[in-house]
């Protein structure tokens, strides 16, 4: 559905007299299959939105190629526009308009006739449970209602692919769960959904496949399960005070059962091991022999945050 090769974009930013070139996106290669929810995960400023805006024809790439729903992004952006829907992060409804007016206008901008536009607006209002508020001004809507109107606007022309930029940011937990259901419904209707998010749980629970982006590059790609499996085994978190952390690291770094060791800045260790159940007693013994007291020890299955950490050396929560 989407295939990109070497997609690049840099911006010039001016600070005082100096102009600096910022490479927002540096060569992104992606393949998104039909009918999947594809997630773009990464911290703010990683280049997710820039990539999305390039794919949605809103900004022109500096280099690279992309085919979207069979149309070439560089040579035929007009055809790409007809085949995709795009829902921006910052909203797209006008305070003084009603949801129905907005939906009809949007359909008409896609070249749909008047009667059909009204039919589609009514159908969309129904599907997104907005009929009740359809003829009220958008400024009276709650955050969740407004976001549903915006998604409905993005798919009013029944595109093959819809791009959703941070669809759940700023929503309360209930609206967020509701939005996940809406997104799954789009997939059930045969649409390919491309979302960006900086929520780990969202990427994990919602997406069929994800790409992790950092500093303008894709650092990992795959299903959430496969990515987590890539970090073979399990993760043991050892709670230590900052003073004894270096000593503990030295003791455990050479242990055969520790595949990888990372120190946590605020004190403590993160150990990647094959099997926690056998590793933990050995870790405890070794630390005890070294005279190091630990405050806690916990075992957990690798999360996407661990994937991010091993790929970038930082935690997604910190960045």
């Amino acid at each position, binding site marked *: 559905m989407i295939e990109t090769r070497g997609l690049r974009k840099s*911006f010039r930013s001016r600070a005082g007299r100096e102009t600096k070139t910022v490479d927002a996106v540096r060569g992104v290669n992606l393949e998104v299959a039909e009918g999947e929810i594809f997630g773009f995960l990464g911290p703010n400023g990683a280049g997710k939105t820039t990539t999305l805006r390039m794919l*949605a*024809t*809103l*900004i*022109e790439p500096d280099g690279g190629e992309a085919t979207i729903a069979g149309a070439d992004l560089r040579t035929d952006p*007009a055809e790409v*526009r*007809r085949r*995709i*829907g*795009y829902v*921006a992060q*910052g*909203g*797209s*409804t*006008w*305070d*003084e*308009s009603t949801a129905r*007016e907005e939906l009809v*206008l*949007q359909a*008409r*901008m*896609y*070249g749909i006739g008047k009667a059909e536009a009204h039919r589609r607006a009514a159908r969309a209002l129904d599907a997104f449970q907005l009929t009740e508020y359809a003829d009220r001004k958008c400024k009276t809507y709650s955050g969740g209602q407004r976001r549903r109107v915006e998604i409905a*606007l993005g798919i009013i*022309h029944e595109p093959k692919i819809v791009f959703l930029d941070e669809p759940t940011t700023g929503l309360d937990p209930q609206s967020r769960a509701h939005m996940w259901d809406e997104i799954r419904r789009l997939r059930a209707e045969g649409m390919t959904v491309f979302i960006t998010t900086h929520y780990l749980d969202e990427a994990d629970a919602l997406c069929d496949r994800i790409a992790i982006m950092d500093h303008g590059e894709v650092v990992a790609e795959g299903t959430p399960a496969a990515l987590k499996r890539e970090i073979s085994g399990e993760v043991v978190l050892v709670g230590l005070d900052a003073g004894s952390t270096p000593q503990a690291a030295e003791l455990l770094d050479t242990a055969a059962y520790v595949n990888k060791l990372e120190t946590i800045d605020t004190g403590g260790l993160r150990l990647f091991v094959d099997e926690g159940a056998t590793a933990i007693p050995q870790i405890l013994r070794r630390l005890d022999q070294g005279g190091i007291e630990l405050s806690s020890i916990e075992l957990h299955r690798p999360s996407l945050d661990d994937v991010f950490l091993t790929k970038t050396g930082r935690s997604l929560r910190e960045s």
Partner: protein
Amino acid sequence: MKLARDTWLIFRRQTQLLLRNPVWIFVGVFQPVMYLLLFAPLLKPALNASTQAAAYKIFVPGLLVLLAIFGGLFQGFGLIAELRAGIIERSRVTPVSRLALLLGRSLRDVVSLLAQAVIITLLALLFDLRVSLGYLLLAYLMLALIALMTSAVSYGVALKVKSEDALAPLMNTVAQPVLLLSGILLPLTFAPGWLQGVAKWNPFSWAVDGVRALFVGELGNDKVWQGLAIITVLAVAGVFWAARQFARSVR
């Protein structure tokens, strides 16, 4: 065909929203009406005009051009609000014509300006202003072209600067000399030679002269076709420049 359809679509939407809040048509008219009531009576003695009606034939055309210039130049503010609400981006991901995104909006501005111009003209009738209908319509055409140009330029600049804080001083800086150098309030025939020389380079000064000629019924006056020609060229240039801003990527 697609352009006409898309333009109509945008125009309809914009007009609908405007009519939902029609109070601002009167806000726009308020200032010129004040000029008409409180400033124009000074003109008969000041201009040494033979009658009050003669003074109005000089003043009302200037006032209408003023309305067209200012009404247009400040339309960019509405666009910045739309930009911020994501309306422009939402439009730009659809295949809708980029020229239509501009023209639909600018034509709404032209129509609302003409509505205001009619109100002013009707009020001036009460003060014994008399103009033949054909000439008046030609004068309105000039006003429409001026408003088309200034609103298009305002939209183009708004898309470039993207903030009210930058747009307001910019437009004021442009509008002030344009206003003073066009002989809108008082005819430039009173001006010293150097000032007249500078004003020759101001297209709006030609427009004002043209509209004044029409108001006194001098269709054959060269200033009429010269003014129309200059403003038409500028309006077309302004529209194309601004439409390009709509087509270009907005970050």
